[in-house]
């Protein structure tokens, strides 16, 4: 099925990677430019390790893998509605980002083994600062950077399919 949607699985993997790279660049760039302190790879990595170095390396690997896997879900979405455009991808990305901000990140203090919670306070194991509403504990620019990153991710995937269909049709 993926071959029918995207030309070849190799292309899908490639564009999944490109979209992940674009999103990661925006999110990590927002830290360097002073808009946010959030690093999703770091938060992901500290799920499995309390070693900062290892957490970053593993986090980036897991995050890239996640980006690829999510690309398949996006392709399924495009196929299910039969619309292959950049704007549908952007819309899906924005909704994905919003879900991340209002549901997934606020859940972290309850599931992340190394994150402190405003209810339980800080312990010698749970020392990481929690994200708070819309992850704004990591800076007021965090929601904007997250939405922008996710939107670009979706738009890249949708744009790729739009281009693919234009070339084949």
């Amino acid at each position, binding site marked *: 099925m993926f071959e029918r949607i995207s030309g070849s699985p190799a292309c899908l993997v490639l564009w999944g990677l490109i979209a992940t790279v674009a999103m990661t660049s925006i999110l990590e760039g927002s830290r360097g430019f*002073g808009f*946010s*302190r*959030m690093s999703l790879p770091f*938060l992901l990595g500290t799920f499995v390790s*309390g*070693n900062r170095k290892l957490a970053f390396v593993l986090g980036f690997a897991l995050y890239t893998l996640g980006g690829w896997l999510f690309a398949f879900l996006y392709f399924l979405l495009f196929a299910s509605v039969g619309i292959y455009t950049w704007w549908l991808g952007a819309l899906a990305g924005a909704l994905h980002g919003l879900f991340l901000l209002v549901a997934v990140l606020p859940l972290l203090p309850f599931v992340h083994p190394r994150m402190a919670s*405003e209810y339980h306070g800080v*312990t010698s194991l749970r*020392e990481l600062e929690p994200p708070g509403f819309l992850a704004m504990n990591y800076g007021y620019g965090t929601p904007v950077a997250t939405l922008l990153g996710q939107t670009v991710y979706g738009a890249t995937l949708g744009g790729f399919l739009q281009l693919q269909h234009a070339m084949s049709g």
Partner: protein
Amino acid sequence: MKGASALDSASHSEGLRSARPSQLPIEDYAIIGDCRTAALISRDGSIAWLCLPNFSSPSVFGEILDERVGGWFRIKPRGHFKSSRHYIADTPVLETTFETAQGAVRVVDLFPVGGGIDTLQPMREVLRLVDGIRGELDLEIHIAPAPNYGRTKPRLTRRGQLGWCFNWYNELLAVRSGVDLRRTGDALHASVRVRAGERICLSLSYAKDDVGVLLPVELIAQEHLDRTLAWWQSWAKRCTYAGPYKAAVLRSALTLKLLSFSLSGAIVAAPTTSLPEAIGAGRNWDYRYCWLRDSGWTMQALVGLGFQAEARQFLSWLLHATRLTWPELQVMYDIFGRTRLREQELKHFAGYRGSRPVRIGNGAYRQRQLDVYGEVVFAAHAYVEGGGVLEPVECRLLKGLGEVVCKQWREPDHGIWEIRGAPRHYTFSKLMCWVALDRLLKLDEKKVLRLEKLRGKFEKERGELSKAIEKYGYSTAINSYTLSFNGESVDASLLLMPCFGFKDAHEPRIRSTYDRIWQRLGCNGLLYRYERGRDALPGKEGVFGICTYWAVHHLASRRDFGEAKRLFEHALTFANEVGLFAEEFNPENGAALGNFPQAFTHTGLINAALAMERA
């Protein structure tokens, strides 16, 4: 989100308005640090200077430069009190004891040594522990950060049991404590009574570009303190110096280590900016950079004390950070080797005791100083003498410096003292050019590097330099070597001529120069760096700390140990009670002047002690 500008707003915070009537003397401060940044803590318990995350980053606490808007972190007894302080043995962990009629407490201040990248330690952390030791004592705690040199208003938020957080841009300063801190304007305040046997802990953890780490301070405080003490004491044990005045030498070594930047190997001249060389005279400069002129003596101090790893790191920084400008060298670089250090004035800062302007950046980076070539080659030579090995690429870099010396030594410069105005032919600059070629030739003789065809050229130019110094750098009218060619005034750097091996210390010209320097520059047993009025700047600067140690070094090379010892002991009396030296001193009352503490003065002390031990 970007922080709002505090300058536009008349009221940064109620707390920030409560200025103290007068500032403490410079010598009433002590330094703590983590080899990335450093804080100055006053005798009355205030962190009055702290830049985050690094030495040359903007200040978060800058009370020492402006009591109204600079920002501070105070732990201070209510009412009248007496304070005394010292560093815990062989560490830079500061212990201040406050005493009142009712009781006494001990405050321990430190930057905890982290567990490294293998843990989730905060990027930077300051820990303050208060232990009640007698009776009971009421303390006032006041935390008022003023980031970006007081230009940015931080957003203060309470996060339930996680404590208070100050946010600005992508930076976070989290306050963790068991004390019930209350918001007062944009600051935090608490009044607490500490009884004998009780302990309160306060921690600041800082993050930039990263998720913050919040510490269970009550649980980890003792462990962090013990680990920090153990780390520093283990470091101090590596010091191989066994001569006299060991305590002073070790304190200087610890201070030098605190001023080193572990991320690059650079060593800053001082952790502060614009502490004045003369009160109210405009002689205020930013010293949070690395001056190559200090490099030779710094290297000699590190090698002489047995800190070979630090020496290696420093040499690597010297030769690699300067590659941006190689084969030419700038006067100074920042801690990462960056070359543009544009000077600006912080017009909203009142300055230490009203000494304006407060400057950040340093315009002297544009000057030309030919002595720096000699300093860098001298540093490399000292490193090799101490058993170090140079990489082939480093040998190539050093040879390039020698070629620049050959091309440029006939040109005027601004000299070691960075005297602003027209360049001149400074005798010390020529001496250091001679040192550069002489040490390169010595390295060639030892087969550390291969000069090959350059050897003849370097020998010829070294000879020319020697002749020029003797012909134009010595005045028969005053029987002394002179500050500049064909001049009639002297400066203290000329004391180093025998120390570099240019001439024997017993030579009549060297002896008469020594006498002339004391005659013209001596004051209450200390030395000015040059004759007054030479720099055309307003105000009268103090005596220059390192110059007296140069005189000791000079006397040691003459084997006049009695006089060297007397002078050394006299110079030691100008340290504050925790063993720290400023750049300059008021010769009349001994008050510290200039940026504090000063690496240059401490390296002078170490090298003078080493010279006495070896001679």
